[in-house]
């Protein structure tokens, strides 16, 4: 049987992690190709609804990454984001959604190596967890429902 290749979506901030991921590439460091990077102005811009939509559209895992504390380009975006994630993780856990599927990290523009590690470790972890079945089941029910509605 073919090995499960997880789909990972990475939401990264423009100023640190995106540049960090760029450095990984220019340094010719190889890392797992499962990740699709989406650039945001700041981690403070990454609304929790965006993460939920990523899961809904078939992501098996999510990486959220931005500037280290005190390094935010907008001085406090990542501090606000950190508070939000503390609360959001609590809520996800209480609602029975595996919080292990969302990896948060701080990766600076100089940490090309750390980015490769974060991606590789996340891919490894999600491979162990397997496909995001719970969410996929719900998505399928949504599709059937919406198709049914449009054919009426």
């Amino acid at each position, binding site marked *: 049987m073919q090995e499960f290749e997880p789909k990972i979506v990475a939401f990264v901030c423009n100023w640190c992690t995106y540049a960090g991921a760029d450095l990984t590439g220019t340094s010719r460091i190889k890392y797992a190709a499962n990740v699709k990077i989406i650039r945001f102005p700041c981690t403070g811009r990454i609304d929790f*609804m965006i993460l939920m939509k990523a899961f*809904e559209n078939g992501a098996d895992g999510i990486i959220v990454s931005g500037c280290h504390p005190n390094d935010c380009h907008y001085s406090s975006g990542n501090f606000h984001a950190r508070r939000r994630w503390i*609360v959001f993780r609590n809520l996800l856990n209480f609602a*029975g959604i595996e919080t292990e599927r969302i990896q948060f*990290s701080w990766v600076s523009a100089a940490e090309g190596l750390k980015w490769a590690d974060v991606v590789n470790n996340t891919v490894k972890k999600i491979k162990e967890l397997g496909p995001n079945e719970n969410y996929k*089941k719900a998505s399928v029910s*949504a599709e059937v429902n919406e198709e049914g509605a449009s054919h009426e």
Partner: protein
Amino acid sequence: MNELIKIVTQLLSDKTIGVFIGYEKGSAGRTRALFARNADQAQKLICDDTCTQNLAGYLLKPEIKKLGRIGILANIPALRSIMQLASEHQIKDQSLLVLTANSDGSLTEFCDFHSIEKYLETSDVNITSGEKEMIARLESMTTTERREFWSREFEKCIKCYACRAACPMCYCHRCTTDVNQPQWIPVASHEMGNLEYHLMRAMHLAGRCINCGECAKACPMDIPLNLLTYQLIEPIRENFGKTAGMKADAVYALSTFNPDDTENFIL
């Protein structure tokens, strides 16, 4: 009870207030909200232990606001709602006339927000032991069991938005639920859409919920959705030292930060 009618009649007659929000006997032995605009209507006011609804949910409704200065009979959840709405700059100090019924039946009138804060300091604002137990039971489950529990509950949801309508903190003119560019919350009532709706609602109320339980009481399908927001009260108090609805000048936990906030999950 007579004292309340006397006070409100006086307030309405001398035009100190334009409307008084209290309780009256409804049909089938129920107690419902009363919006008294004149002395006659004020005679229907009651004040007993069936008066549990959080009336603060009506304070920001345009059709109530246009009736003039509002007087309100507020219980503890309503007082907390008023504090939270004040901290969100939705209500000005002195703009309301707030009465509360004490446990001994006497009435207290609050002259300003500060006196409400003082009153709340000595009141019981915690969630009930039954609710605590329910949360503890859910927390002791495995993730999959919890997921199944909520899946069964959300399956019942018919997306009537009664929870949103009943919530005193849901006053946005345009709710995320109504946004269709992009369509954050699917309109149809299916498992995914219901899950997203309820998580969105809980997240938008995190740190603002004053545990009045109106959402769960309003739910026609009996979903215990108040637990979602109640569960977040303790972590927010522990992590950020904030409790909603206690201070009129409080800062919302998620709109501020502390450089020393700690977590254990960010690499």
